[in-house]
Structure formats: structure tokens, C-alpha cells
């Protein structure tokens, strides 16, 4: 099972970013960037070209779904896992339909993050 080398965490709440970052460290993922808004996420991505993105849907500027679309436009193979507090089936369907490779519901246990990591490359 391959592991992502560069990961981008997109969330407007810094605590959540820290938590996810720490969790990823635990799973041996160390090359991590953070972004607190959609625009910043795109800028960072364009600069570094990550191979995996944890993307919150509720962002202050651009919707996470829109960011997802732009990311995929840039690189259709980027592995994006959507993160959201809304787990409704429609939400999930919408995100997956737009090309996300996973969906993690907040609050999440480290286990779920592991699952998402495990599926990288799938």
C-alpha cells in the first residue's frame, strides 16, 4: 500500500488542522501543508502540487466542493478526501460525484483518518 508523500490539510479551524496534522504524523506522513481558506488552499496547491488533500467542505470563502473541482481541473489524479460535519447521503453523493476519493465525517476518530490514508492510491 502506497502512502501519500505531500498532504494538504484545508480547514478554517486551526485546532482541527493541528489535530489532523498530528494524527497524520502518527501514521508516518510528515510532508504536510495547511491552508485556512479555499483560495489559500488553491494557491498552496498550485505551488506544491500535493498528492493528497483533506478538504473541509465548509470554508469561509469558497465552498470546498468548488475547491475540489478546481483541484481536479488542475490535476485529475489528486486524491481528495472531503471532510465535513454534514454526513447526509446527498452531501456524500455530491462530493463523490464531483470526484472526491473519500469522505470523512467530523467529529472523526484517528481510525477514520487511517482508513482514508489506507485508501490512498485506490
Amino acid at each position, binding site marked *: 500500500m502506497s502512502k501519500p508523500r505531500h498532504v494538504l490539510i484545508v480547514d478554517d479551524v486551526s*485546532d482541527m488542522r493541528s489535530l489532523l496534522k498530528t494524527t497524520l504524523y502518527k501514521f508516518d506522513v510528515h510532508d504536510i501543508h495547511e491552508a485556512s481558506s479555499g483560495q489559500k488552499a488553491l494557491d498552496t496547491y498550485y505551488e506544491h502540487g500535493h498528492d493528497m488533500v483533506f478538504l473541509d467542505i465548509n470554508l469561509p470563502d469558497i465552498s470546498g466542493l468548488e475547491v475540489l473541482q478546481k483541484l481536479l481541473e488542475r490535476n485529475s489524479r489528486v486524491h481528495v478526501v472531503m471532510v465535513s460535519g454534514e454526513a447526509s447521503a446527498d452531501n*456524500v453523493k455530491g462530493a463523490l460525484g464531483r470526484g472526491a476519493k473519500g469522505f470523512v465525517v467530523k467529529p472523526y476518530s484517528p481510525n477514520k483518518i487511517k482508513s482514508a490514508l489506507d485508501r490512498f492510491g485506490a
Partner: protein
Amino acid sequence: MLYRFKWLFLPFFVLLLSSHAVGSINANFLSSSMPVNLAPAGDYLIDPEGELSISQIRGADSRLPWQKQAEEVPNFGFSDVTVWARYYINPEDNRFSQGLIEIGYPLLDHVEVYLFFDGLEIKKYEFGDEHPFSKRPVKHRNFIVPVSLFENNKYELYIKVKTTSSLQFPVALWDQTSFWESDATSSMFSALYLGAMAVMVLYNFALFMYLRERAYIYYVSLVIGTIGFQTGIDGYAYQLFFPNLPLLQSKIVSVSITFQMVSAILFAKHFLSIATSKASLLHMVNLMFALSVLLFCFAIFLPYASVIQTISVAAALMCMIWLVAGIYEWSQGNRSAKLFVLAWTSMVVGVVILSLNKNGILPRLFVTENAMVIGTLGQVVLFSLALASRINQERDEKAKATKEALVANQRAVENLSKYQTLYEESLEGMFKCNQRGEFIHANPAMARMLGFESVKELMKSRFTFKEDLFADHDQLTMLFKQLRDTGSSSEFDAELFDRNRDYFWGALSLRMVDNDEGQRKYFEGTLRDITERREKEKAQMEKQAAFEATQAKSFFLANMSHEIRTPLTAIIGFAESIQEGGLSKSEEAGYIGTIIRSSQHLLHVINEILDLSKIEANKLDVEILKLDLFAIVKEAQSCCEMKAREKGLDFNIVYEFPLPRHIYSDQTRLKQVLLNLTSNALKFTEQGSITITVFRKPETEQIGFRVQDTGIGMTKDQQAKVFEAFTQADSSTTRLHGGTGLGLSIAKQLAEVMGGDITLTSELDKGSTFEVLVSHGDLSNVDWVSDISQAGVQQEDANAPVAIPRLQGEILYAEDNTDNQDLVSMLIKPTGASLKIVQNGAEAMAEALKHQYDLVLMDIQMPMMSGTTATRLLRENGYKNPIIAITANLMDYEIKEYLSVGCNGYLAKPVNKNRFYEVLSLYLKVAQESQLKEVSKTSSPQRQQYRGTVLVADDVEDNCTLFASKLAKYGVDCVTVEDGSRAVEEALVGDFDLVLMDLNMPRMNGDEATSLLRNSGFMEPIVALTAEDDSQTIQLLLSNGFDGHLVKPLSEEKLNTVLDRYLLPAEISPSGSAKETENEIATDPDFQVLIDNYVAGLGGYVEKLNSAHDDNQWEELKGLAHQLKGSGGSFGFNEISATAKELEAALKENNIAVVPEKFLALIHEIGAVCNQSIDDSIKGLG
């Protein structure tokens, strides 16, 4: 009318006809001028009888009434008398020594001339039109007698005249020289006249031959008529043309004048275009014409006088008419009409002048004497000019019209070429056919469509519209009916043949075409090839039909599935409850009752499906045996009467006696049909009655049962569908009233197999009557029942408790299904027989060959080796003891197979207790009481306990409850949701070890939910709950992300297997799994720092929450709640997430009333976390 005006015309024409004399006589007798008119000197005697002879005349002189005549020319009109004239002549000189006496009227029939000198007859002549011309002494048109009268001699001249024409005789005395001089002049004049007329005739006839204009031939006829008339009355005709035919001379005038009249009418009519332009005149002219033609035809036979008189009147009238009509035409600008009028005027003037001359008003001159001749000559010439003018006029008009036609033609040609291109290159076929359907025209597209190379080929062929084109003659008939009724037909779609008799579909548009006479001689139209469209439509329709059939089958299957599962649910549920124990006796009895009822219903449903499939496969056999008619009815009665009474319905049976006691039919099937109809009636009737009438229909040798109810009835639509399988009268009815909806379909088909039928009459809300007829077979040897007292029947009590026989012996039972094993052992145990159970055919064979059992019960469908194979092998190995097949496979051919391989009999599954014991008793010894063995009790197995949480998704609440309770027994926590989308949400949010996912759920089905979950990274096992377990379905499930499946209804064993596979046993504490990782992370110091930071930050959240709440900033508050929901749990504070979620939900739903409460709960939770943290810190410090 005509008669009244007779006086007006008659004299005029009589004058015209009578007063024509060439010679004239001077009043002065013996004057020097020539000739000497003898008339004034004459005495006249009318001899009415015409019998007087010359001697009598002379002799009886004094006694006869001789008279003088005042006129210059004696005129006696049309009279049939004989007239005598007497002249005393005494010449003063010898002028007449070579003289001539002339009677100047050539139309006299009979003339006798006597000349006496000194009382002696010196000359006697007899001549006239009745006599040949050659007998005349002088060959002249007038009657001439040569005389020699000498000076101072006294002569007596007697002339006797008799004629049918008007009687007049101008008598003149000439000297020969003067006579011949005068005659030469008048002859020349006549010759000129005749010559002119002849020229006119020839010239105009030539014109006619050249121009072919009818007016000319009429004109020629008119001139010929005039010539005939003129020469007739002048005597020239007789003299020159037919001197030896006196008969002709007598008729020539009347024939000529009528011919002249006919010609004149034709000529004028044609000339003035009476037929087209003067409709008002036409009638009268036609009448005149008819009269003239009649007169002409009979002129020979009619008396001269009446012909002439009638013609005179008609001619006068016609003359007026022509003048008036001509003047009218003239005034309308018709130049030729002027000449026409002048021509008639010329003639009329001629006649008038002549008559005035004759009456002495005008002086007697050559011109006035010959006015008539000149008039007619003028007329003829003017007519000729008029004709020429008219022809010129017509030619001009024709030239003009021709020019116009040329222009129009040119234009038409231009248009035509435009349309011709359209016609030639059109993709639509265009054609014209005659009444027989032969093609008259067609365009290339038409020829192509009909399979011809060219239009020419089509025209040459015998291919006709009516004979060859239509594939279906009815369509042709229909098309022509439409055409006859409305004159046209558009877009008529028909299946057609081309010349090679290949089918194609065409759209025809036709219309009838009238010819000039308004007869429908042709039809024309267009043809379009619509085969492609038709085929598309057909394919579409077939697709639709296939789709509908599939729909119906799916609906049927779904319904069947429902019908089967419903009783099964009750059976399993209640059976399990009983198994659990702890029920009171009455509860248990009730449950068992339900189980049995449900099972029976299930069996019934399955039997119906089987029946139907047998019928569909044409495999339904009936067994015709002698059976008790009344017993059958009684059975239906006993089955339904109680239920009817319970519902408050009257239940009646009416027998129409006499009836046979026994009939020949299939007992089971007949009973089935009857029961079906009665229970059907029962189902749909809420009040009133149900009546079964039993009757016989001797003419068809049938027994009938009429089941009549006063129930809800059916609409016509429902009636039409009620006997159809798969299609239910109304699926909602089925839901409401239960049943499979197959019963009636089966019943009808059964009745048909039994030589009858079922018919239905029904009225909505009034009730239905089903009448079933079945053939009753040969009744010659059966008893007849004539009243109800004889109809008593003995009845088997099907519901009596089953007596368990006491048996002795060893039984081997081969069966792979443990439930059936249990059932059979339960049944056998109380009998006292011993039982050995093996799992399959192979084991059974080994066991049986090892040990001789008294009886082998052999299941048919078993793994390893089927029952049939095992039986066959046993028999082949010399096994002699009885073997009974015990099976659910009960198709006729299957049963035959069991018996053929060596089974002694068969038992149907589900097992009927009575029959089971019956068979057992047949093959085993009945035991003594003492030999019975004690039965040991089996203990129920201990249930395995598991750890974990299971998510169950199923839309049927009962199923969820059932799962929850079952899982609880395994010590497993369970969350249930009612559809796929909820399952997705719950599975992603929660922490489950296993998901049980029903496939058919509303909103989102199990397949989609699973696929979503898998795509979003859900890794836990998902097991499908299915109704089917064929390998194809399972394969599909696995590829869709399922890990396994459980077949419904749920078997305890299978559930156990699934739990065992996916959950940890309770006694094993969680280790090495994901849970371990989680624990590890939770206690990791790195995380502890994060958690501490998070908790430290919570104070800030509280402030923000408070201010948002106090300021009613709901959006702000919602955002905060959302963040806390996401973060709380992530840091291990699930309560914060939970309360935050509730607050967010309340705000989302705008449920402001509960917001304060939720808000406080969240604040409280955060506070609790903060306090805990502080406590921990203190502890840590301590």
C-alpha cells in the same frame, strides 16, 4: 292564339301564293295592246258537284247561275269545286288568226278548254297538272291553247277548271308573236333568277365544304327550298325537270315550302345562336321547328290547302320573330345581324309590294309584278353576305381567341415544366388510375416504389392499383369506402406489395377525379414509403410490449414474494417465540394456531403458483372419476358457510332438481374451482347473501354451479381482466382482500380443461355472478336425485384430531434440512418407531445396505447424491424394503420418475400428518403399547455472545425490531435505520463493526448506499439482506462492495455464521485491531498537547457562543455549533459534539424555542470538559 291572328296573315300570304301571274290581261277587251285579258268578259259558274258536261253547260244555259267576276284575275280561293268560265269572243280584226289562249296559272290540276264557232265545237283540250306535260298542245309552263280567230266571227270559249291549290285562272288572248316576245323576256328573267339562285347554292355549298360551317348548309337548303317553291309555282319545274311526273308537280310546292321553312328556322336559329343566347325564344322556335319538320315529313300526304295555310301562319310568325331577334342582335353590336334583318326585310318588302300591286294600290310595273322574286333574290343575297360577315366576324374572334390561347398555352407550358420537374423528381410517388385501377400516369418515384425500373415499365405491366398493390384486401375496401363517402382520403397507412410481392408500408392520399360530365372516372394521389417509420414504431411497440410483459412478471413476482413472505414472517416469528419459551398455555395455543393458518395459506399460495405454471406449461392433467356431486357441494358449503355466517351473510344452496347423484369429473379440481368461487364471493361481500345454485345443462351434458353474491361487484374493465393471470383486476383490491389474484385465472382454466368454462356477470356495487360449467360425462348408470331429502351426504371430517398410530420398526430418513429432520422425528417419536437420520443420498445408501430398515423415507433434493439416484442404486443393489419419496417436487413427471426408479410411494412436503401416519401404518407393523420407548428430551443449545455494534438498515420496522431482539441475544448492540441514505449517514458518523443492509429500500436502495459508503472510504463489512441467493445475485453483490449476504427469512444459523465471521467473541477483549490504534493515539502525549490546547481554546468558544446567543446572531451561533460538532468528538469530547449537533440542528430547523435549552446544554458540556481538565491538571500537579 294563332287562329285569332289568322285574318291578319292569311290574306297576305294567300295573296302571295295566288296572285302570281306572268301574263296580265287588259280590261279593255280587244284593245290593241297585247295580251287581251279575257277575265272581265267572262261569266263564271261554280259546279259544286263537278258533274256537268259541256253539252249540259251549253244546253241548259239559261237555267245556270252564271256570274260575273269583279277582279282582274278570277280567284275562288281554296275550294274543292269545279269552276266553269264562258267567254264570248268576237275579234274585230285578224290579229288572232294565229293566236294563243293562255291560262296563266300553272298549278291547276285539271283544265278542259272548249272552243265553239257557230255552235260547233272546233277545239277541245284537256290538260293540267294531273296530266303528263307532253300532252299539252304547247309545251309551256302555263296552259296554252293555240287558236285561229278570224275577223267578225263569233266564238264561244268554255274553260273548266278543277284544282286542289287555290283556284284562280287569269285567261289572256295573245297573238303568237307578242306571246313569244313576252315569254322570252320573262323566261330570261326567270333564267337569270334561277341562275343567280343556283350560283348562290353552288357558291355556298362550296363554302360549306371548305369551312364546314353548318350555317352554310342551312343556307343552301333554304335557297334550294326557295328555288323549289318558286319553280313549283311558276311551273318551270314541271316543264323542265319532270314533265312526265304529274304527281311530283302536285306536291312540289308544299314540299318545297315546308322544306324552306325548316331550313329557314335552322338557319336563323343557328345564325342568331338562339340555342345559347336566347333561351326564352328557344322554346317557341323549337316548337315551330318541330311543327315544320312534321309538316315537311307529311307534306306529301296532307292536303295541299292545309299545308299551305299552316305554313303561312307559321312563316308570318317566324318572320316577325327573326326580325325582332335580328334587330335585337343588331342593337347588341352584331354587324352580321344587320344584314340578316335586311334580308328578311327584303323578302317582306317584296311580299308587301306584290300584295299592294295586286290590290291595285301600286301601279302594275315589271318591278312590282316581280317584287316577290326580287325580294327573295335580295334575301338570298343578303343572307349570303350576312353569312360571310358572320364568318369573318367569327374568324376574327377565333384568331383573337387563338392568340389568347397561345399565350395561355405558353404560360401553361412554363408552369407545366415547373411542375413536371417536381413531379419527375419528387420522392413521393404520384399517380393517376382509372376506375379499374390501371395506372394512367405515374412518376418515377411511384414506379421505383413499386419495384419497376421505369415509369414505362410500370405502364406496360399488368400491375394494377386494385389487384396487386394491397397486401390486405380489407384495407383496399376500407380505403375505397372512404373515397366513395368523402371523395378523398389522406394519409391512409396500408401494407402494400411491390411487383415482386415484397411488403412495404405506404401512406396513401387519394382523391376522386371527375371528368367533364361529372362522372367519377379516375382517382389520383400520392404514395409515401413509410416502412422505416412503421418498423421503428413496431420495434417501439414490441419493446413496449416486452417491457410490459416484464413489468407484469416483475409485478407478479414481487407480489408472490410478498405473498410468500407474509405468512412466513408470522410462522417464523411465532415459532421462535414459542421456542423461547415463557409463554402461557393460551398464548402458545394462539401462536400455534396462527402458525398453522399461515402455513396453510402459504401452501395454498404455492399450490396456486404451481397450478398456474402447470397450466402455462400445458402440463395440467385431470383425473376423471365418478364422484358424488352433493358431497362436493357440501364441502364447499362446510368450508364457507361458517365464514359467511360470521360475516352476517346468508348462505344458500339451491338445487335445480333432478340432478345426478354422481358425475364423472376431477374431484380435486372441481372442488378447487368451486371453493375458489365461493371464497371469492365471500371475500368481496360485506352484506347480503351468497347463493350457490347447482343445475344441469342437458343439451351440452354439463353440470353447472352458479355462485351469486351481493358484494362490491366489478366495473366492465375489471370484469375484462378478472380472469387474466399476472394482471390483477386491481392490485389494491388484492392488498385489501388478500389472495394471490391467480385463483380465478386458474379456476377458469381448470373449468376449460374439464370441458366447460366460467362466465361472469357483474354490476358494480350490486354483486357478481360466476357461472361454472363442467362436463358431467356419461350418466346412463347413475342414480338421480329429485329432492333435497335424498341429497344427504356423508362427509369426512378433515378437521378431526389426528390419531397417532402405535408403530414398530426401524425407519431410515435421508434429509439434509434439519428443520425437516426435526419435524419428521417429532412426528415419528410418539408412534414408537425408531428413526435414523442421514444427511444425503450417499449416506442413506451406505446405511441402508449396512442395515435392513423397515422403511426408508427418502428426500429427493439432497447434496452429494439425490434421493432418486440413491433409490435407483439401492434397488440395483437388491434392496427390497419399501422406500418412500418425501419431496416438494410434485410435478407429474417427477412423481413418475420416483416410482420408476423404485420408490413404493411418495409423501408431499409440507407433510400432511394424516397422510404421513397412513403411509407409515401401511409399511410398518402396528405395535403393542408395551413396546413403546421412552423419549428423551433434547436440550437447547447455548448461544454464543459477541462484542460490537451493528448497523441494520431495513425499511420494514418489524424486521428491524426482529433484528434488534435477535442481535441483543448475541450480546450485540444494534442501531437501525429505515433507508439507504440514513444508513450512509449513520455508518459514516458512527463507529460500527458490521452493517446489515437490506437491498430494497425507499429513497436509496442498499446497492447505492453500499457503493457510496465504499467510495467514501467506509471499510467495515457490509452484509446484504436478500430474498434470492442464486450465485449471479451474490456475484453482483460482492462486486458492488458487499462482503456477504443473508437470505430472508432469516435463519438463526446463518445469522450466527455471519456474526461469527465479522464480530469478535465477547470473551476476547479487543486487541490488535483498529480499536487498539485508537487507544494508543488517545493516550499519546502529542495528542495530549493538542487536546490541552483545544480545551484551553474552549473558553474562547464559550465567549463567542454567549455573545452570539445574547445578540440573537443565529447564523453566527450555528457556525460555532457546527465547528464544535466537528471538533469536539475529534478531540475525544463526544458530548460536546453531540450537544453542538443538537444546537445546530435546532438552529437549522429554525426551532428557536429549544435553542436556549440546547445552548445551555452545550455551554454546560464545555464547562464540564474544562472543569475535568482543570481537575486533571490539579491531579497532575498533585
